[in-house]
């Protein structure tokens, strides 16, 4: 069975000598490829009785045995009577093994590939099911939140504080830097246009309104979705794979109480605070650029900012943040709970959580814009 290299040199082949089919070469997994593809086109002897001569076989493994079985089958399907001769006992044993009903059954059962229509149906029903699941998760979370409000002693403060730190304080450098750069970009883009009309001072309006009303809340939410929303999905997903979620249930802790509510509360506190911080840094970025490109000094800029911005502009931006926070936390946790089975699923769900939460944040932002416009704020 383990041939020396010299014996194994020849590829598996069949030679047709009169009414006999002679098997030659090494019938091993590395050497049967050519024969396997040729098998259907071989001109078998026309005789009714065929002998397969196996004494010249120098090696055979299960792959070779399977090919030999195919030879047998294709001869027999032509109505011939086939007998084997000269096959070594161990090769015969292999041939018997691959012909067991289990194997034949396994092949017969190979499921056909689903049709395009079926695949579309599977995707659609999956989408609907996920929507329903999401809704029921939101409901479950709301019910848990209500219970927590009725019994404030059950609120878990420590995870809330921990999450404020990890989602808020730890995100300060990256959020600050990005919003500062965004302020610079806006002032820079505006500078060319404003200079043309000699309206340099209005750079304060441009930067102030854009940052406070739209960009700070949106940018902060996107950064937090990428930083914390994904972490929530990965954390809960991993806990699910390692059965920690089930363990929590068995010791009498409601997983939503411990894992979801603190995150929603913490993010609803942290995200508005981060947004205020982002407002400041964004305006600062605009100020630096205004001084350099438009010769608008800091005092003039700040003076103009007071006239340009009302309290409502600030509140509109900050008001969106808790909604974004809830979206990010709920989507992240929901996707974490959707993890089933293996590590790969954790990765997939984490990706989905980021994509979905950013998508929903932007949709919510668009809805807010329409609403505020209708209300004239």
């Amino acid at each position: 069975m383990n041939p020396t290299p010299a014996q194994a040199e020849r590829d598996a082949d069949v030679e047709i000598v009169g009414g006999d089919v002679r098997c030659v070469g090494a019938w091993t997994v590395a050497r049967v490829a050519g024969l396997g593809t040729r098998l259907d086109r071989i001109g078998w002897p026309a005789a009714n009785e065929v002998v397969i001569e196996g004494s010249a076989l120098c090696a055979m493994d299960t792959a070779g045995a399977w090919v030999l079985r195919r030879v047998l089958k294709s001869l027999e399907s032509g109505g011939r009577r086939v007998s084997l001769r000269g096959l070594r006992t161990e090769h015969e044993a292999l041939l018997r093994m691959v012909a067991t009903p289990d194997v034949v059954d396994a092949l017969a059962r190979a499921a056909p590939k689903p049709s395009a229509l079926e695949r579309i149906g599977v995707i659609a029903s999956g989408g609907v099911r996920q929507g329903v699941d999401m809704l029921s998760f939101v409901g479950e979370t709301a019910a848990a939140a209500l219970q927590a409000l009725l019994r404030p002693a059950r609120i878990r403060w420590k995870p809330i504080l921990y999450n404020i730190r990890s989602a808020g304080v730890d995100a300060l450098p990256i959020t600050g830097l990005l919003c500062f750069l965004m302020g610079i970009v806006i002032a820079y883009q505006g500078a060319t246009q404003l200079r043309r009309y000699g309206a340099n001072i209005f750079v304060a309006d441009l930067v102030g309104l854009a940052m406070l009303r739209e960009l700070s809340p949106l940018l902060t939410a996107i950064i937090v979705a990428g930083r914390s929303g994904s972490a929530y999905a990965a954390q809960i997903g991993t806990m699910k794979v390692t059965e920690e979620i089930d363990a929590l249930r068995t010791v009498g802790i409601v997983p939503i109480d411990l894992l979801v509510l603190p995150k929603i509360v913490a993010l609803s506190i942290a995200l508005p605070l981060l947004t205020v911080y982002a407002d400041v840094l964004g305006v600062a970025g605009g100020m630096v650029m205004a001084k350099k490109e438009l010769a608008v000094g800091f005092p003039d800029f700040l003076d103009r900012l007071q006239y340009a911005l009302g309290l409502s502009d600030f509140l509109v931006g900050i008001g969106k943040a808790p909604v974004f926070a809830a979206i990010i936390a709920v989507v992240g946790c929901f996707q974490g709970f959707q993890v089933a089975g293996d590590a790969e699923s954790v990765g997939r769900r984490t990706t989905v959580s980021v994509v979905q939460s950013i998508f929903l944040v932007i949709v919510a932002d668009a809805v807010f814009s329409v609403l505020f416009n209708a209300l004239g704020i």
Partner: protein
Amino acid sequence: MEAPRHAAEPIVEVRDVCTRFGDAVVHDGVSLAVREGEVFALAGASGCGKSTLLREIILLHQPQSGSIRVLGREVVGLGDEEALPLRRNWGVMFERGGLFGSLTVRENVGLPLREHTSLDDRLIDEIAAVKIALTGLPSSAAAKYPVELSGGMRKRAALARAIALDPRLLFLDEPTAGLDPLSADGFDHLVKHLKELLGLTIFMVTHDLDLLWGVADRVAFMVEGRIAGVGTMQELSKSEQPLVREYFYGPRGRGAREQAWKRR
């Protein structure tokens, strides 16, 4: 198929291997030899360096010093390119299966075939089905993903993948760990059956006493980074080494031995 005993060169030969992780000495001069055609087991307490030695033999870890020859080639310091022909000639079943989660069982088993041979897809699927049936998995398991299988079925699927290329040498890492007694028993028979049918040489790492008594031809017993004894289980059970004795004459060891005697 009985392979010739005391063949010219052992199929696996480990000589004076020393391994350290930082300050922790894992192997302190380990030597052993596996003969062609036998079932060789490496036993010992948890954490004594069994699995690390296995990883060194299959080129997943480099020892600090010593020599390891597998299928006639020195593997210490071997590059990936040179290791390829060796890797085609052995199959490895990992403790937790190591099945690819994104592939079905059939695709998992077919992967080595697709990678290393020029067989057409139909033949690969058929050979994969043969291997799956050979390991005793029901035919319905072929289209399933590893997460949908029970622990015992996953081990069988991993075994099917390990023998996909009809290797000369099969490595099993804790083949029965995490199985219920009945499944573990089934696995014993499966290993014996495959060895006879495919003429494999099997190197396994285990602390399953039933497997050691029932299947292994020879056993090496590892204690604190050294081989404390090599031989058949009968020989080892007469060893004077206190740690080896403890292993065999503890309550579990005695039970397994009595079972093995009854079966003989």
